[in-house]
């Protein structure tokens, strides 16, 4: 084959490869992966709904001792109340698969909100783990903060001490609280990426 005949082929190849871009994942500093979820009242939530608002995603499993640590000590509820009062949206996401620990029907999720006096904006039910995997959620709790521009600005642990012991909450650096304080004040978030701790998310 003459090289001149190869040219259109080469150009077609270049064009094909140029559009084969890598897939997205939650990454600090990058736009958050889109999601499309249903909450415990049957209402739809997408990332686009929260454009212009600060948004917190909290991975939740009420059977997990690390989640219990923060709910039994009322730490999680206090954070939810403090920040939703300031206009921050807070979505608790349950990515436990049916039959696994933490799996919730809509009724069960609503009961848990009531029993724990939790104050999230909504509880998203993600039994197929689609949202969890899009955000690469590893543990419960696993916390993600998204700014009004839709960019992930924090990804990681709720605080600095990896334990299931309530006594450690007061001693720990409250990463999420600090991140929201800094973020809403227009200041730099540091650290903006930590290793989440807790139980593994019970994916299908």
């Amino acid at each position, binding site marked *: 084959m*003459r*090289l*001149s005949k190869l*040219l259109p082929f080469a150009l077609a*190849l*270049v064009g094909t*490869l140029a559009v084969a871009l890598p897939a997205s994942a939650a*990454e*600090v*500093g*990058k736009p958050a992966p889109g999601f499309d979820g249903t909450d415990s009242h049957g209402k739809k939530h997408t990332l686009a709904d929260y454009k212009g608002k600060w948004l917190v995603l909290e991975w939740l499993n009420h*059977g*997990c*001792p*690390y989640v219990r640590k923060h709910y039994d000590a009322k730490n999680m509820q206090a954070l939810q109340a403090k920040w939703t009062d300031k206009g921050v949206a807070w979505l608790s996401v349950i990515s436990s698969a049916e039959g*696994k*620990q933490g799996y919730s029907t809509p009724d069960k999720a609503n009961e848990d909100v009531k029993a724990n006096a939790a104050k999230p904006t909504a509880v998203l039910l993600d039994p197929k783990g689609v949202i969890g*995997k899009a955000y690469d959620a*590893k*543990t419960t709790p696993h916390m993600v903060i998204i700014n009004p521009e839709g*960019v992930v*600005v*924090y*990804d*990681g642990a709720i605080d600095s001490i*990896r*334990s*299931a*012991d309530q006594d450690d909450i007061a001693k720990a650096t409250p990463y999420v609280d600090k991140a929201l304080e800094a973020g809403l004040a227009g*200041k*730099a*978030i*540091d650290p*903006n*990426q*930590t*290793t989440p*701790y*807790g*139980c*593994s*998310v*019970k*994916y*299908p």
Partner: protein
Amino acid sequence: MRPSQLLSLLLSLLLLPGLGGAAPSSVEASHVTVSLVAEHAAVAPGGATTLGLHFDLEPGWHIYWHNPGESGEPPKVKAWRLPPGAEAGPLGWPVPKRVPMGPIMNYGYEGEVVLTAPLTVGPGWPAEATVEADVTWLVCKEDCIPGKATLGLTLPAADAPQPDARWAPVFAAAREATPAEALATLARDGEGLRVTLPTLDAPADAPIDFLPAVEGVVSPSAPVTVERPAEGGVALGLTLAPTAPDTLDALPGLVVVGQGSDRRALRVNAVPADAAPVDGARAPPPPSDAPTSVAWAVLLAFLGGLILNLMPCVFPVLSLKILGFVQQSGEQAAKIRAHGWAFAGGVLVSFWALGGALVALRAGGDRLGWGFQLQSPLFVAVLALMVFALGLALSGLFEVGLALTSVGGSKRFEGLGGSFATGVLATVVATPCTAPFMGPALGYGLTQPPAAAMAVFSGLGFGMAFPYLVLSHAPALLRRLPRPGPWMETFKQAMAFPLFATAVWLLDVFARQAGADAAFRLGLAFVGVAFAAWLWGRGQRTGKVGAARGVVVAAALGVSAWGALTDLDEARPATAAGDGFWQPWSPDAVAAERRAGRAVFVNFTAAWCISCQVNERVVFRDDDVRAAFRDADAVALKADWTHRDATIADALAEHGREGVPLYLYYPPDPAAPVQVLPPVLTPAMVRDALAGR
């Protein structure tokens, strides 16, 4: 929870120290029995023993290693209570295994495991001493159950230590199983890390794994790729965790070879090759990556090569080639094709030579990048003299490559050497210009094994030569070029001036590298070369190209070269005085400004990089751009790579580049990602970046 377990848990909680009675040595908690044990039943005061936490797990349940992986929590001793003068050391951890939980990867233990702790027995060890430990753990299957207990053990004093019949063999086995240390080097590899064990000798079919001893650096759930380079040893490819720090001085971990009863582990602390102990400083054999990535890099390199033709530094030389084609347009197709391939050959051979030198030097531990040859004043001086001589030839002072201008020569393939030489020259002059697609491809290629790196260089060369190959194979296209005629002589002479300008620019680069004295000597060498060219040209015109003339010409060239090229001190510092706009770059400076919440613009440049210089003049001296910097309160930092500099080479490598230019913009929000601007800038691009658009 079964009633019996509940009972034992309650009992263990009740039996706390001080509540009457010593703590139990063993508790049967949910799904695990935890015991405090010792290597000796009795210890000698002033001696030592080893304590152990023994976990006996129900089938299917596990506890965690000190790096638990992506979830979980390791067992901890919150507090030791020991007789006065005694001291317990840190916990020792047997080699763990991977424990996957769906897509989440953990490191831990199943079945039975003993975590050890060395104990120094003080001289005042009482006759009936007890040791106690407050222990916490997390035991998981699908679900997780945290546990805690206070465990106690009576350790009486004796004249000589008495091994415990039950536990002494367990401790002996644990000591026996302690992993040996192995040498390993660490290298960044784009989004990943490469840990190379040059001396590891593992059977070809044995699985090899890497377990990081630190959290948050290596992604536990990403697969570990294993490469066995021909030179021997093993290279492991790891994926960085999102929480990994920007710079990594060392990576401790376990390398596990084999499985089942053949499983053995080595303890490594992988450090960058230039920090590795000398006896292990064999060139790290880099593993190859997926062939698709190599193909991608070669394709990018090909595109980069194509674009290289349009770069300001290449055009004068290429004008020669274009002239050649015009000249040849009336000739036989076979001859034209031959010339096209000779030119391509010249380009390819030059890229291979440069690439080969670069790969070889890097294998020797030099941290070099693309354009390295221009960091050598000797190379710059020789290039300047060559370009100047070529300019003289084009302006008609003397003749070279006669075949290029001879029409209808008798020999069919004459002048192929000239086409080849043009290819070489075009490549050599092209190196300062890093074309947009070239940086990433070269950056990738150079982290690959030599064969893949050479493939990338071949792609680059082929891309650069491609338009000429197409032309030489498509006579129809050639016929569209202007007809040959007297205009060609004028055009050729005019093209001398870009070459003279190139020579002057190289003189400027040389002056920055080697100082004013050396630049003066190089200037004199220009005169010597001009004299030699004039003398030779006269001889050509009068037909008197005798031996005597040859000797004089050679002498003039020799003296010029000797005067210009000797006594060059490469270490002479550049006169780095800026115009007050740019501040010197360093990683610390970037970090400090970002912490202060300021936007940072970094300009990676070099005097020998002509596209950098074009950007410098057209963009960074632009009043509107400077105003945009002031408006954005952005700090302008310059990293000058005119001289060799390992820190700058590392920073370029971090952004996947092997050469300059590289322009980075860090927005004021430290959480925002760094923006990489294209290598060919316009004032608007910089203004937009600064304005956050």
